[in-house]
């Protein structure tokens, strides 16, 4: 360990408000993006019109892609992301810090290399888009209250379904690893920053842009493909699909960079004494997720650019009359798409296993089993994607292999359940709100997992494919699993992140309404699926009307529970602020040994880790870390 120390330079003097407004920030970025879109659109129209090799293509798509490409550049330029790379061309030195002004709210509106600021930016952005996607779900359920759908034309209904699915998948991918991963990883491993701080900030702002680009699909005629973007529909769709392609590409890029950053940080910046065996389980969750992101998202990106080139320069990747094949999309998309499910699930596993020991007041049962479970799921998720193609005409001889691997993946997933049950076994559980969400996670994920076995099995998949059974299954895994874990994580860590407590009574009302109405919404959909209700169609058999009305009513109540959560956030963080204690849960992990909120530089002295953070109930357990002679710690770890 380097012993030399350097003084902290005081934050820059606050610039006048007007000067800040015209500087590099989200306001400038928005203006530049709009202007750049207009310029790019015009240029694209000219290129599309004058290029001889492009005579057969849809020139409007060329203009839209040029416009969006320019808008991305304008957005990044406005936020200041080109300043450093341009400086590097001129030979300026590497620097690690930018936009870190203590106490300034303005740093939340621009490029900032403080991982805690980026995490909060992520949280606000992803929650915003989460609520937008949730609103789409309410529209979908409204439409399904009548047998023949009267609120939206069929095409618009498809766009709603696509927007809901794509937005949820995109934002939930970023919604856990972005806020919690970026916030927790450096602190939990005992360092001050992520490995590549500017890249960290870039991923956040790309995610924001991706959300708005996806929403712009509604202005471009929508898209009929759902979140899966299947060819040849994507080749033939109206210009709204261009927004889908660009937004997913941005999220793919963001995922790769987030993953790269987290893995590098964990591999190279762990504090002395932070051996692999002491790494908090939630960090393992982020690492395994990151491996999936780094290796699977590039394949998605390749598939997306192939579709974009089919739509602009008339390549024929997915055009079967010209040497291509729509099935190529299925293969590439699901090579990403199935690991994507685990990109969502693995951080959820990590979060619940991190929280359980705190409220069970027992050590985490089977730490190494949990790590092997996380890696087992990550590895096997690359071997199962063809089960999504059972009904798409794949070679029948391939089916048994993929059926087997898909069923096999339930074994490492089962490890996580064993860890959870083992930790809670004979424990004196504190039923706090984070703990309730974690317990609900196991309840919900069990239904999601068991229904998944039916879908991995070729005969039963043949019956249920494309039905609401599939829809109920993945909502149980993604919403019942990941979103419940995320909520648990938010209630657990938000006091540390913001320095303010959330209202517990409101939080409990939120939990119980969300848990009850989630199950009342999605459990009946298994029955609807078995009774033949198809996905993505707004008209259905009249015999299913009452069931659908009931589900819609429950879904609205579920939506209401989310409003309670939103109200609690605003109430507790804006109107009725109560300072959070440094360690309200008496937790032992590193972040709770720091003040709330955590100082800009996390640790005055880089800590030396002396123990794993799960030795609850052991009276003679050593402290988790030695903070050196000038300990910043304010919390008191309880036994």
């Amino acid at each position, binding site marked *: 360990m*380097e*012993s030399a*120390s*350097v*003084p*902290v330079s*005081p*934050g820059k003097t606050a610039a006048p408000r007007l000067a800040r407004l015209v500087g590099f920030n989200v306001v400038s970025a928005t203006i530049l993006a709009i202007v750049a879109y207009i310029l790019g659109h015009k240029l694209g129209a000219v290129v599309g019109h004058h290029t001889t*090799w492009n005579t057969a293509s849809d020139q409007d798509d060329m203009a839209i892609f040029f416009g969006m490409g320019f808008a991305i550049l304008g957005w990044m330029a406005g936020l200041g992301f080109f300043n450093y*790379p341009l400086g*590097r*061309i*001129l*030979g*300026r*030195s*590497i*620097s*690690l*810090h930018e936009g870190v002004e*203590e*106490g300034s709210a303005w740093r939340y509106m621009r490029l900032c290399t403080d991982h805690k600021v980026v995490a909060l930016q992520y949280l606000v952005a992803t929650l915003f888009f989460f609520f937008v996607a949730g609103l789409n779900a309410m529209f979908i359920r409204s439409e399904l209250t009548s047998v023949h759908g009267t609120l939206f034309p069929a095409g618009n209904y498809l766009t709603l379904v696509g927007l809901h699915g794509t937005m949820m998948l995109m934002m939930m991918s970023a919604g856990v690893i972005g806020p919690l991963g970026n916030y927790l990883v450096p602190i939990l491993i005992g360092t*001050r920053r992520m*490995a*590549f701080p500017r890249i960290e900030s870039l991923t956040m702002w790309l995610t924001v842009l991706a959300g708005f680009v996806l929403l712009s699909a509604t202005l471009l005629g929508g898209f009929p493909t759902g979140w899966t973007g299947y060819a040849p529909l994507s080749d033939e769709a109206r210009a709204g699909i261009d927004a889908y392609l660009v937004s997913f590409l941005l999220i793919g890029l963001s995922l790769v960079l987030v993953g*790269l950053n987290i*893995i*590098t940080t964990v591999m*190279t*910046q762990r504090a002395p004494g932070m051996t692999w065996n002491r790494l908090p389980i939630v960090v393992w969750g982020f690492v395994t997720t990151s491996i999936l992101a*780094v*290796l699977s*998202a*590039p*394949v998605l990106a*390749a*598939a997306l650019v*192939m579709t974009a*080139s*089919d739509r602009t*320069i*008339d*390549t*024929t*990747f997915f055009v*079967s*009359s*010209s*040497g*291509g*094949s729509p*099935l*190529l999309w299925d293969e*590439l998309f699901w090579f990403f798409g199935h690991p994507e499910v685990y990109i969502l699930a693995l951080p959820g596993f990590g979060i619940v296993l991190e929280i359980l020991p705190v409220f069970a007041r027992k050590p985490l049962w089977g730490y190494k089993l949990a790590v092997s479970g996380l890696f087992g799921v990550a590895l096997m998720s690359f071997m199962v994607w063809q089960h999504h193609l059972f009904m798409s005409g794949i070679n029948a001889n391939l089916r048994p292999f993929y059926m087997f691997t898909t069923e096999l993946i339930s074994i490492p997933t089962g490890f996580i359940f064993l860890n959870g049950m083992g930790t809670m076994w004979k424990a004196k559980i504190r039923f706090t709100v984070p703990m309730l969400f974690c317990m609900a996670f196991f309840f919900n994920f069990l239904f999601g997992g068991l229904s998944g076995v039916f879908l991995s099995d070729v005969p039963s998949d043949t019956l249920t494919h494309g039905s609401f059974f599939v829809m109920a299954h993945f909502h149980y895994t993604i919403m019942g699993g990941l979103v419940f874990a995320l909520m648990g994580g938010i209630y657990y860590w938000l006091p540390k992140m913001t320095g303010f407590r959330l209202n517990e009574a409101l939080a409990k009302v939120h939990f119980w309404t969300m848990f009850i109405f989630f199950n009342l919404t999605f459990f009946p959909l298994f029955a609807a699926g078995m009774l033949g209700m198809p996905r993505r169609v707004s008209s259905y058999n009249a015999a299913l009307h009452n069931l659908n009305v009931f589900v819609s009513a429950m879904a609205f109540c579920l939506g209401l529970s989310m409003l309670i959560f939103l109200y609690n956030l605003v109430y507790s963080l804006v109107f009725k602020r109560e300072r959070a204690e440094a360690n309200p849960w008496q937790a032992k992990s590193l972040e709770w040994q720091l003040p709330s909120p955590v100082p*800009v*530089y996390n640790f*005055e*002295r880089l800590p030396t880790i002396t123990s794993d953070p799960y030795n609850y109930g052991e009276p003679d357990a050593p402290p988790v870390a030695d903070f*050196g002679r*000038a300990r910043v710690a304010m919390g008191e770890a309880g036994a």
Partner: protein
Amino acid sequence: MSATEGMALDREPPETLPRNFAVGSKLLASAVAFFFMSFVFAFFYLRALNTAHSFREPHVTPPAGWGVAILACVLVSCVALEGGRRALTDGSEGTWRLAALTAWLVGLAAVALQGAEYYNLGFGATSGGLASVFYGFTIWFGVFWLGGVYWIETIWAQSVRRPASPDPDVGDPARLLRPSADAALTYLYMLAVAEIVVFVLLYLVK
């Protein structure tokens, strides 16, 4: 007064940044490999299906001469940078600058040659599966390669300008030249491997 004003912080261990470069570049290379593997997969998949007998239309024959020239530039650029890296290890910064400049210029030439090849192909992107893979791969290879060329330039510029670092965690930027060159080479080697594989598939496999 801010929370940390007046405090003295530990400096980051000096080996952290070089290790970040090493690990980060390997992960980046892995991501790039998976991106280009998708095009390789598309080649084999579409070739096997050969829908409408249009995978390789009769007139679709990528000109091998151009392909060889582009591949040669890619390889020369890598070799030059490798030579520069070894010169850095030997403490010969002048040789490093010359080698890096060569790598940079030859790298740019590869992109220019790719642009010229498009005007001498004799087939368009619409000409079946092979043409699609050809255009898809070469366009995106050019984009990724340009990123590598940018990277070389930044390292070269830093060695020429020798700026003082404003960041105490970075320390003397000169100590980062070698790790930066290592990282850039990892990325460029991966691109070179992709180029070799795809050269065989696009230009040589009939």
